[in-house]
């Protein structure tokens, strides 16, 4: 039985070879990085951030005034979302999804720490942050950078935020990605706002179940 050859015809193959050779020198570093990332996260729904040099750590106060850092949550998957409590739409949706993921995790729920960092510290007091995060889930943690700290925190996490005046007040534009850290405290995935909760739960379980952990 003969099957059709899968290779392109000779002429096209030659062109392809020339093109590949020419592009190879420039492409090699990019390819290597691509392969590494792919190998590290073969089947996640989120955007793979393994090995990026940012989002390494934070030192921010919780509503009790205690400074918290990523190392406090070792052995847990950490989900971090940047937002503000007067956000009518995106922030409640992201936190509700996180709460649904915790429900879906069942007995593993305690292995997911959800952190909400405000980009509106002027209006988001420690008390308001606590009221807000715990309204979604008593175990959610709100962290509040001082206004002077916010630019460096945002830069470290590559999140944008901008105060936008509206007629009578102001609103905040901000990055709507959630970040996921593996139990060793390494930034691994960015989660898009429209990713369904069941896919996010799978990614959390994937990180919890990695062999080295």
């Amino acid at each position: 039985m003969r099957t059709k050859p899968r290779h392109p015809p000779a002429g096209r193959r030659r062109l392809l070879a020339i093109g590949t050779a020419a592009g190879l020198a420039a492409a090699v570093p990019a390819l290597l990085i691509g392969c590494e990332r792919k190998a590290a996260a073969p089947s996640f729904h989120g955007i793979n951030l393994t090995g990026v040099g940012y989002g390494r750590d934070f030192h921010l106060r919780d509503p009790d005034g205690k400074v918290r850092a990523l190392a406090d949550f070792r052995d847990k998957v950490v989900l971090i979302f940047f937002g503000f409590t007067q956000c009518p739409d995106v922030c409640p949706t992201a936190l509700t999804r996180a709460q649904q993921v915790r429900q879906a995790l069942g007995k593993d729920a305690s292995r997911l720490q959800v952190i909400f960092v405000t980009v509106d510290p002027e209006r988001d007091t420690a008390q308001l942050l606590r009221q807000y995060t715990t309204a979604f889930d008593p175990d959610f943690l709100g962290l509040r950078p001082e206004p002077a700290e916010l630019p460096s925190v945002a830069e470290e996490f590559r999140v944008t935020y901008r105060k936008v005046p509206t007629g009578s007040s102001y609103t905040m534009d901000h990055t709507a990605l959630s970040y996921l850290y593996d139990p060793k405290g390494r930034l691994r995935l960015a989660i898009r706002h429209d990713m369904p909760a069941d896919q996010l739960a799978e990614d959390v379980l994937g990180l919890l179940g990695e062999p080295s952990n």
Partner: protein
Amino acid sequence: MKHLSRLALASALALVALQASAEVSIKDPWVRATVTDQKATGAFMQLQSSSDARVVEARSPVAGAVEIHEMTMVDNVMKMRALPDGLDLPAGKSVELKPGSYHVMLIDLKQGLKVGDTVPLSLVVEGKDKKRETIEVKAEVRPLGAASGPKGPMMHGDGEHKHHH
């Protein structure tokens, strides 16, 4: 036949209209609950006008200021803008104020809004003839984690905060 279906549509619209004028129907109005110290939240609903019109103003006794906003997502960044000319209601088209799109922003809240409360809203609608009329809406306060309508970016299971109607 054609007449009949138009009649059916008209009566369906009339049924869902909530204290609306002959022109504009408002369906499923709701407001997102707040926590005690929170000073702003969003209101959502579906609007439909029989002729071209525009919502030019919104008011509520629970808020110091009310604005109509549009939310957009650009490169994973959420942006909200007040609509300076109000919200267009093209004739016969359902315009949905929902998470991920338009909302009425209630700012400088005078009190916390608890699930089950009713929030009065007044929408000022301007027709093509520049005539304005005020529509009174009673919006139900739903949980902080409520999503709009039966579909949203939610899980298929039953989350505690999920809200069908």
